[in-house]
């Protein structure tokens, strides 16, 4: 179900981020459930970043720089700037934060992730221009660095933000 096969396919695994200024780059996060992916793209410099966050907050940790939104968002935004994006003119899009489990209380982490992301961005003066959040379907997302398109694929549909 890979959206695009390409040597310039960069994958953000769980708790990871990928960045690129290459016009042929595709930044991908596979199989998001309750996790939330944030895509940042500067239309002028055509620099893009994609981060695969796991949780709203938690203890600062190990090797996963963007595991938590509270400590990881600035790490991700700074890295995107360092790659050449100007955040004030960049577009921010997010997807994921679904509720996959209905039993055992449902572990309402998806909803908390969506709220934490919106709040953390607002604190820094940014807002999401497009989202595909919530619901109960898993998503694979892909940011096209050439034009900023954000593709969302679930088992039943493909859409574009």
């Amino acid at each position: 179900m890979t959206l695009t096969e390409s040597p310039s396919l960069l994958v953000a695994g769980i708790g990871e981020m990928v960045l690129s200024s290459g016009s042929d780059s595709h930044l991908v996060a596979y199989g998001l459930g309750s996790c939330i992916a944030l895509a940042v793209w500067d239309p002028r410099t055509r620099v893009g970043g994609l981060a695969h966050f796991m949780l709203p907050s938690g203890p600062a940790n190990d090797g996963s720089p963007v595991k938590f939104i509270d400590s990881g968002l600035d790490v991700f935004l700074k890295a995107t700037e360092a790659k050449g994006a100007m955040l004030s003119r960049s577009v921010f899009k997010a997807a994921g934060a679904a509720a996959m489990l209905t039993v055992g209380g449902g572990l309402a982490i998806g909803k908390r992730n969506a709220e934490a992301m919106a709040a953390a961005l607002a604190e820094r003066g940014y807002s999401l221009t497009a989202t595909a959040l919530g619901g109960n379907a898993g998503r694979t997302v892909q940011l096209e660095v050439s034009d900023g398109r954000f593709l969302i694929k679930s088992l039943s549909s493909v859409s574009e933000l």
Partner: protein
Amino acid sequence: MTLTISEAGQNVVAGTFRKAMKRAGEALGSMSGQVIEVETPMLRRCSASDVLAMAGGPESIVLAVYVGINGSLQGHALLLFSPADAHRLAAILLTGLLGPGELPMEESPDVLSYDELELSALQEAGNVTISAFLNELGTHLHEPVMPTPPQVIIEMAGAVLDAVLLDLVNDADQVLAAKTTFTEGGRAIDGTLFVLPRADSLRVLLEALGAIGI
């Protein structure tokens, strides 16, 4: 949480998990009326992305039966099948119940579509398998283990597992993952069972098994 377990302690845990996985396989076997082989379980302390890799990668499509674990041991259990194997298992289970000739055995044209009867059979198969595992583990604990009702999810493995992993990695960077594969000889149905205890109840389990301090 840092928990140091000696090699002897690890062997005790592995032995118990092996026995419980075997019980789970037997339960699935008696439900399906087939001989189910249980692969020697893999028991690992690993990262979230390792668990996703063990499930075939985040984008592989699975039919998962999820059972939450509450009570004296808390965590999550999942029985995963490939979509095609899930159809085959459902056919075996339903043929056993309804008699031969009641169900077509050929592959469904839409492999991700299951009828209500199939879903119900698979949900029960997951329930029986996971409960057998928990019952075995429960014999070592002082308080009962309480599984939630089962939930069937047809999804990308990453999406099914991440909700569970998020619950676990909040407390610990590493999770204890126990995994085995069930194979039904003639028709080669592979099912993968994951049991993922929460960090705080891992200590309870290890203490109950006598795996700490040996």
